[in-house]
């Protein structure tokens, strides 16, 4: 829990010495955790063991949560753990166990699309960095006041300034949810109406 007491020190130190040559302890910690996160992420996509990949993903996502904490965004950090580590990874592991989760290496798990995937990932990262940098280039954070990432500040910001995008996102997610239910139910009725046909059998396997 020392992480919580650290950010104010960082704020004060950054106000006094704005430079790369005298990094504070929190900045060094940020860098080290970032390296560990990057390492875990690389292992996630390169390891040949399926379940190990999912577990390294836990490390990478947890590392991201620690980075959020170091940036004083406490609320975002806990939500990150709650949603990604607690739910998404459990869902991933559930899916893996349901389908195929051999112990040891699975050499056939590799895809021939790895270079395309790398290209897409690089393009996505570039686009995201560019958009974020462009949008917040002129935004300055007041470091002298209270921490900017507390739950109260985040909540007020979200529901005052960004309430429209927030609601739009909710509607989008709701639409995806309803769509998923409709898709799964239609397949269900198909199999009961025409149980023996080739088409449904193929559909079920996919």
């Amino acid at each position, binding site marked *: 829990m020392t992480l919580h007491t650290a950010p104010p020190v960082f704020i004060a130190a950054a106000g006094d010495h704005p430079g790369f040559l005298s990094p504070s302890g929190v900045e060094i910690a940020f860098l080290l955790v970032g390296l560990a996160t990057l390492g875990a992420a690389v292992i996630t996509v390169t390891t040949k063991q399926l379940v190990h990949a999912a577990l390294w993903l*836990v490390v990478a996502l947890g590392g991201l949560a620690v980075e959020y904490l170091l940036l004083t965004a406490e609320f975002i950090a806990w939500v990150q*753990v709650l949603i990604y580590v*607690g739910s998404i990874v459990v*869902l991933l592991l559930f899916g893996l166990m349901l389908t195929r989760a051999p112990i040891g290496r699975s050499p056939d798990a590799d895809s021939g699309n790895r270079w395309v995937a790398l290209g897409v990932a690089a393009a996505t990262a570039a686009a995201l960095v560019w958009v974020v940098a462009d949008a917040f280039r002129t935004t300055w954070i007041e470091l002298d006041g209270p921490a900017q990432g507390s*739950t109260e500040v985040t909540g007020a910001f979200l529901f005052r300034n960004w309430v429209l995008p927030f609601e739009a996102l909710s509607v989008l997610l709701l639409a995806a949810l309803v769509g998923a239910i409709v898709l799964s139910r239609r397949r269900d009725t198909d199999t009961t109406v025409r149980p023996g046909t080739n088409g449904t059998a193929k559909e079920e396997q996919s």
Partner: protein
Amino acid sequence: MNDALDVALRLAVIFVVFLVAPLLVGQTEHKVMAHMQGRLGPMYAGGFHGWAQLVADGVKFAQKEDVVPAAADRRVFQLAPAVALLPYLLVLVVIPVGPGDGAVGQVIDAGIFFVLAVMGIGVLGSLMAGWASANKFSLLGGLRTAAQLLSYELPMLLTAASVAMAAGTVSLTGILDAFEWWWLPWQIVGALVFFVAGLAELQRPPFDMPVADSEIIFGAYTEYTGLRFALFLLAEYAGIVILCALTTVLFLGGWHGPFGADGLGWLWTLLKTALLAFVVIWLRVSYPRLREDQLQKLAWTTLVPLALAQIALTGIVKVAIN
């Protein structure tokens, strides 16, 4: 130096509570179950009514050989008990026992989120154990654990959100400071849903499908022996303590009581927690195990609608009194 001493003392107290409270619950379970079933339970270890039975069990576990199955994934298999146990230790740090900053390990601004997020990690330990054991029963147990968590996490979050709405804060100490006695009838549905969903997340009876001994031996923990098995058991009982303490803090007013709120607040918290722990044991003795489809049906068709109704009620009352 004084600060460091303060932090060290708090951590030491929390660690001792973390080790002792689950043992107390375990011993109570031995005795309460026994008496409910017309038996005596452990009577010899330690002399007085077998009080040292769990200590003796612990010594026995520590003496056993540490076996890792040949086909298992060694590292994940050995890491799993730690992943299952440590989150509960972390959660214990933020639970306020009495009023003021002195009675809580560390005040966290987003307390509810921290607690629920970290508790969710514990299940990863069961999943890792289930997969890494290279045993079909273990894998089935892991699958059932995951399915159960996915459906019961939602009602738990929703009811916690209802309390946060009522109090206007997500900090555990803030919720207790805002508590009024009439919250009890106001949030009672949420409390029941939270408690039931928490039981399911801990895989306690009647939600012990993932470790159903008549079907899949002991689920994800089938291949474990000795200390690692003891750690899983400790995680289960620590989970009971955490769940009861959380229900107390969120829904039953924590250190608030009819009298003695100034000096004896911590006693109210402990009393309510112990009472809830008794209910957990009672449920184990009195209810048969739910089948998998009944489990899912209960979560999605009963608990989630109830939780949503509770949120609507909270919102309406909140708007009305403002």
